[in-house]
């Protein structure tokens, strides 16, 4: 990629990491949610850099637009409390978590560093279709090769809706 794209990458990447840290370490849930929105936006930028325009749009519309709004609704419904910054009384939890997560990260980095040449290739010639536009190329795959997962996720959404309604019903006679 050219120079402009490089700069954009680094900015987006660093912002994503910073806001990611913000998600995890924010004192209140609202701040955490807002940080997550920022992260999602950065990721959308990165998707654009990778020529996945449809996915980037979906990310913004669905993830940042709908899912996070839902999160914010629930956060305001339940109330925001300050539990004390990372306070916990489970022995060893913090230490072990950092240890294991660090090991995981180092492992992945190590592996990636080892084989930089393997991640190239022209498999299905997908990029060549891009002269038609990513959305059209994406759609032509979605409704032919991947039509079954498409239909399955439709079913999944219906089930989730039913589940949410069932869970959210007020159970009569219960003291709140």
């Amino acid at each position: 990629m050219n120079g402009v794209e490089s700069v954009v990458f680094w900015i987006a990447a660093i912002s994503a990491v910073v806001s990611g840290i913000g998600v995890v370490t924010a004192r209140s849930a609202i701040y955490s949610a807002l940080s997550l929105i920022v992260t999602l936006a950065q990721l959308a930028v990165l998707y654009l850099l990778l020529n996945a325009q449809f996915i980037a749009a979906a990310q913004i519309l669905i993830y940042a637009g709908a899912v996070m709004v839902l999160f914010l609704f629930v956060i305001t419904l339940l109330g925001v409390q300050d539990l004390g910054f990372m306070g916990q009384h489970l022995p060893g939890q913090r230490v072990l978590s950092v240890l294991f997560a660090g090991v995981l990260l180092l492992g992945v980095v190590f592996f990636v560093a080892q084989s930089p040449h393997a991640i190239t290739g022209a498999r299905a010639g997908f990029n060549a279709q891009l002269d038609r536009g990513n959305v059209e190329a994406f759609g032509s795959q979605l409704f032919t090769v991947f039509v079954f997962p498409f239909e399955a996720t439709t079913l999944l959404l219906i089930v989730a809706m039913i589940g949410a309604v069932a869970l959210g019903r007020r159970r009569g006679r219960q003291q709140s």
Partner: protein
Amino acid sequence: MQHLIWGVLLFPLAGFVVNTLWQRLRGDAVAWIGPGSVFLAFICALGCFAWLQGQSEATRYADEIGWRWALAGQFRLDFGLQLDTLSSTMSLIVTGVGFLILVYATGYMSGEHSFTAGRDGYRRFFSQMDLFIFTMLLLVLADNYLWLLVGWAGVGLTSYLLIGFYFDRPSAVKAARKAFVMNVIGDWGLMVAIFMMFILFGGVDFRTVFSHAHTLPFNGTVITVMCLLLLVGAVAKSAQLPLYTWLPDAMEGPTPVSALIHAATMVTAGVYLVARSYPIYQQSPIGLHTVAFIGAIGTIFAAGLGLANNDIKRILAYSTMSQIAYMFVGVGVAVYSAGIFHLLEHAFFKALLFMGAGAVMQAMHEELDIQKMGGLKSRLPFTYWTFLIGVLAIIGTPGFSGFFSKEDVIGAAYARASHGDPVLWIVWALAVITAGLTAIYMFRLFFLVFHGQSRDPGLAAHAHDPQPSMRIPMAVLAVLSVVGGWISIPGVYNEMEAWLSSTLHRYPVRGPALVPQPFEPVSLILTLAVTLAGFLVAWQIYYRRSPSPQRVASMAPGLYRFMAHRYYVDELYELLIVRPIKVAASALNRFFELDFVDATVDFAAAAVTWSSRRMRVAQTGYVRNYALAILFGAVLLVGYYFTGLGR
């Protein structure tokens, strides 16, 4: 037509299954299914009999193979049935007499006889009787020793079930257990014999065993041991010395049970076993002599027991033991046809006698003590006459069935003894003496029950003859007890011997020649004289009452007490066998069972509890801990692949 033999076996089984599974069968349906299934089996047996008649002497048998049951290396065993003259005779007896007894039972068991702790006594009775008949048929029809053993064990089981039919009576339960334990001793003997057969001959089916039996050393240790082991089984099942004490106690069961199982069929299984195993016994004269002597001693032993007993059923039980001992004498002197002949006739008159006893008991409100009876001739005329026929048959009155068969046996002993086997004179002598004793105790029973003054008028007030369903079988058996013996008159036309010869000559044997025995007039006359003397003694004491029975008893009080207490044998067994076993068992329980076995099991349980308590610590209940555990697993996986171990 020979395939009908499967019907013989399977109809009673079907009757058992239907009667058992159909819990809500009404009484009349049960009364049809029970005897009906046996009747169908009888028809099939008749068909097989007819088929055999039609065959020539050399081919008068059919080996019906069912299916391959076991195949292990060289050992091969099929489930099959053997149709030959011996098994045909036995199956006819079992199904024919069995059918008559079951018809009798439909009348006898209705009413208070069926009331037991369970509510469905009537149905339970018939289903167990059908099961018995099935297992007995399996025993006599099997073509190999293994399935014979299955039938053997099966009749032991049903005998246990039926003796303990009135299971709310402790005495019945004890008697059932006693019978079963003694039978198991017999089972052991038979089993070890079968093991020997397998080792020596490579197979346990009749063809294999009998064709190779004569290859063992004649009169050698091995074959004699096999004979003796088989004899242990026969002795236990047929209630001979020394394993006989269960038979009188078995009278706790309902009277039809006593008639069928403990008179006509199951107890004769030992005789069948010896007769069937004739190639083995022929190879060991010592074995044969043992059989004969056990029979001879047993016959007089049992007669003595019957003389001093006052229980109507137990007297008949001892007479059964005595008559079966006669059958043992018959097969023990290697005249197998004589033993089987007596088996056939005995089935007729013994079943009749038991039916009569049942009629008397029913009339006298279940009273068993003959000292409380008397004068029943006028009240139960039908029973009186049929019982008389049975008594005349059993003592061997000329013209009646028992005469021919008993003379066959005693004459056979005489013939063998005088033709080169002098030790058998003892056997003959004991048999003759017992003929006289039989006359005494049987007529004692008869006179005390039916003649004289009623010694308990209140009990006999409403006595009357039994209902038709009971009378008809009695009548049939009475007829058979008279004419049944005419089918074979030894010395004139020994039809029985001819009939069985096709079976007895199928395999090569050594030992005593299996040919018809000559007619022995000396033995006949002596036996008749002794029998008549016995009758006169009984007439004098128990009918004319001079001297009276009490005076006779007081003439030798010690002897009388000894006999009345059944020679104290039960007490002896209790002391020598039962009590040491109980002591050993309780010692084992304390030192082995509790301290070792229980401790081990408890330890296992404690170990599980201990370890689970330690492992429960990991279940903290916190979601975050569980998530950490998942991450830990993921890290391990990552490490496995990324550090090259997974390549």
